[in-house]
């Protein structure tokens, strides 16, 4: 077993623990955006797709490289943009204390209609 493989396995095992640890406490409301965000991160396969595309020579390699780059780019771009759109929805929250629902039923004068 080469020392490079040993190093790679080390990264692999440590990354498993980091992956578990980093999201261990997530509120339910963020499950969907988090899934979508991590979905974008595995778009890193574009790095691999570019590596095989760069060396493409035979027609078969060209086709495979091309398809892989298209698929991986779609994963990256679509993944980040769709996650951003989901999270954009959260920004409309009021600042704490400025417009929360008053317990005695005197709400702030919000009148924008959908």
């Amino acid at each position: 077993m080469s020392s490079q493989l040993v190093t790679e396995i080390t990264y692999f095992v440590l990354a498993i623990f980091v992956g578990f640890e980093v999201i261990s406490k997530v509120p339910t409301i963020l499950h969907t955006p988090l899934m979508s965000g991590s979905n974008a991160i595995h778009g890193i396969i574009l790095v691999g797709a570019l590596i095989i595309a760069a060396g493409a020579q035979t027609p078969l390699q060209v086709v495979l490289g091309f398809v892989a780059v298209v698929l991986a780019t779609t994963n990256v771009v679509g993944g980040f943009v769709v996650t951003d759109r989901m999270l954009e929805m959260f920004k409309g929250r009021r600042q704490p204390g400025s417009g929360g629902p008053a317990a005695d039923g005197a709400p702030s004068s919000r009148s924008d209609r959908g």
Partner: protein
Amino acid sequence: MAILTAFVYLLAAVLFIVGLKFLSSPPGARRGNQIAALGMLIAIGWTVIVLGRTFTPAGIAISVAGVAIGTVIGAVGARRVQMTAMPQMVALFNGVGGGAAALVAVSELLRLSGSQPDFQTGVPSVFAIIVGGISFAGSAVAFAKLQELMTGTPLTYPGQQLVNGLLALVIVVLAVVLLAVTGQPVVFVAMLVLALLLGVAFVLPIGGADMPVVISLLNAFTGLAVAASGFVLNNFALIVAGTLVGASGTLLTKLMSDAMGRSIGNVLFGAFGQVQAGPEGGGQTGDRSVRAGSADDIGTMLAYSRKVVIVPGYGLAVAQAQHAVRELADLLEKRGVEVEYAIHPVAGRMPGHMNVLLAEANVPYEQLKEMDEVNGQFQNTDVALVVGANDVVNPAARSSPGSPIYGMPILNVDESRNVVFLKRSMRPGFAGIDNDLLYDPKTIMLFGDAKDSLTRLVAAVKAA
């Protein structure tokens, strides 16, 4: 150069981890996504620089064209998609990543032109092809089910598990042949085709309501396939980022199925939501009476309540009624009614679906109550207003052990003094089972599109 590359990839990995951390809490979530995107840009940009002169002319052409086309598909698809269709969009973006991982491994094996791969290349290649292929095809089926291109109900036939098991066995045999006997392309191409078949066969028997869990699992699969491609290419960035997603995705899948009160195994192999011809099935529903109310009656009842709890469900999303529901809530608050929203963890098609929709309509965060928080309060609630939800309030989950949803935590709206259902029809919910609460004497139905009904209720409350 190699050392610099290692540091750049390390920087990208750190940005991914920090990004995921931020994504786990509401205030920083959006920034977290941006941080991760920055990491991605750095990793990809640096890769292009390093590859620099090694690009063949054809390589330049396909890279530029491929990135351009993928960017257009991804950006346009993500921008155009309706909020209600988000889940299937995520499935699609996940599937293409799995497909890319499988193709990277196929390309590397092809470079050996038929000679047998060594252990270090062979094992991760096999893994990337199988798992990436399953993820690609499985995500496509998940997309088709959620997009209603095909039926959302589980497709089952006798001996299905056996057939799927045999399929998996043949794939394993091919993997062994590839590693121990011959590296001929026909072997790994056959393996890829069978992996695609298995992906389809694996998702077919799972009902549409369980798709979020499946998508999350396939997301973890793609992460692992990407990590495997990293081992094939000896690329640190792929290994670390792929593994991060594989691990966090697996945990997230567990959290999601926990939220439904079921095990992952039950979700995947339980053929949940199958139409069951049990003794409790049809018989008793036909002759029971339902109380349908007018918008005016219900509006008056709401206007003179002290406390109203709104329970949103998928119907709210379909009708795009989030602004209408907020208008009603604001109106009631002005009259001194206490209004809260009860959010079931799996209301809608994905966890968090309702929060995203209501946040879009600027519903104050503090009014959104999670299930555990709100369940004790229904006894003091005058009206529970159920907008397009069904399974998540079905008391059968507590009371009838024979029911497919038995054991799932539900919102106890049946404990409130009155229940109002805004529903299009008497049709059962996504799980395909009848809800006794609809026939309860204290339940009033208001039939119609959720947005129309809410608009009528707003008018009625104004008049009251």
